[in-house]
């Protein structure tokens, strides 16, 4: 049977990893907008400068859910610095590609992780901007709010 998405996307979509919330999260980030059909919310726990746990909630299409899932896998156990380096491209590659008009989902994943880390820094009393950079919501560009 032919599929709209790659096997890897389908695998992460149908069996998403790290789904849910972290009640005692150290940082929470949300990117996207229900109006545009995409919201990603990332919860992280940080221990010794490492992402010790991560969970997500996503409202969105198959690729939004799959990118959230794989992105959490890619940062789990990593240092914050490593997590900040996760690019949307790396997410797309790890999924074996995405249809062109779904690339923004991978940007959502990257940005929502950054948003969670920014939140973590903020809770630590640290200005996140020099460390995390400007956050942006890809939906702002592609969807009329």
């Amino acid at each position, binding site marked *: 049977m032919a599929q709209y998405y790659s096997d890897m996307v389908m695998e992460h979509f149908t069996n998403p990893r790290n789904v849910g919330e972290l009640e005692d999260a150290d940082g929470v980030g949300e990117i996207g907008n229900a109006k545009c059909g995409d919201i990603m919310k990332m919860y992280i726990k940080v221990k010794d400068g490492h992402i010790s746990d991560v969970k997500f909630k*996503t409202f969105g299409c198959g690729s939004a859910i799959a990118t959230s899932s794989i992105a959490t896998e890619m940062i789990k156990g990593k240092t914050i610095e490593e997590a900040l380096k996760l690019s949307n491209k790396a997410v797309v590659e790890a999924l074996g590609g995405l249809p062109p008009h779904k690339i923004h989902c991978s940007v959502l994943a990257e940005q929502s992780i950054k948003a969670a880390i920014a939140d973590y820094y903020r809770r630590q009393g640290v200005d996140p901007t020099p460390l995390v950079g400007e956050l942006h919501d890809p939906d702002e560009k592609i969807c009329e709010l």
Partner: protein
Amino acid sequence: MDRFIYADNAATTRIYPEVLEKMMPFLTEQYGNPSSLYSFGQNARQAIDEARDTVAECMNCRFDEVFFTSGGSEADNWAIRMTAEALAKKGKKHIVSSVFEHHAVLHTLKALEKQGFEITLLPVYENGLVRVEDVRNAIRPDTSLVTIMFANNEIGTIQPIPEIGAVCREKGVLFHTDAVQAVGHIPVDFAGMNIDMLSMSAHKFHGPKGVGALLIRRGLRFPSLIEGGAQEKGRRAGTENTAGIVGLAHALKMTCSEMEKITPSLIERRDRLINGLLERVERSRLNGDPVKRLPGNLNISFEGVEGESLLLLLDDKGICASSGSACTSGSLDPSHVLLSIGLPHAIAHGSLRLTISGDTTDEDVDTLLEVIPPIINRLRSFSPVWEKITKGEHYE
């Protein structure tokens, strides 16, 4: 995959085996060109003549009012663009339509707008119905054409076509209806409904893809969209798709004759699905008028859920369905149809269209009612939108 339930008959339908059987000779030994003089070509000519007679009988029109096309989109483009251009010469450059037409109509109108035509798109209100009085009020002295779809492809609402047609007749304005979703599913009477032009597409009523028809009222003349050979009385050029035309006619005959028999059970199953889903899934709503709708169509929005992921999980269970989610349209906005009935974007993204057919069984309905609610629940369980909803936060 559990079982296969095809609940996307508004997208396309299976070709009935009896239809394919009628087509087969023209895909094999009877390959003659219907325009050829020799008897081998005349066999194909005769088959097309008979198909035209069949269409005329089923649609209550004359055989010389039937013009075969490559589908519904071509029929819509031809009717609208070419009558518009013809009547523009008489100074009539205003067209009335509705906001929730199919893109084959809306994009044609947009192209005309760029050429200097003026387009009025009527609202369809919360129930998804055009109001006859709105049509009347929209018609101006320079109105050339009113084009309103017979039944909507997403929410299945059936428009007051005979009444709109009557207003157009009274006002001396041409009336086209895109009946692609109606033909073969509900009674459509060309002569009896004040229609000047009507589009249909075979694959929507168990015929083959790539063939349709435009019915054009006798005496109504406007240029061809496809110029060339003398086929279709010189109004639609191109070597006739004999197999397709024969298939269209036979599918029309079959669906029109089975209609009366299957409609009641179709409606019953549709309503059991609607009520069952609305009952089982909180914060869900039916889109479009509950009664004035196609017997096989239901369209429900589930808050907090996005349509594409819903479709993928249904696919995983062997269920074919459709959604007005932006993600499935290749565009970035959710369905213009759902927005047109006032649905907020966030809710439009979470719509599910099921379009059942005479093939759909009671067991299929049971399965759908069993399978869909847990999928919604699952998606909601990790939906940040659902989280907001349950917390009573604003989220749209």
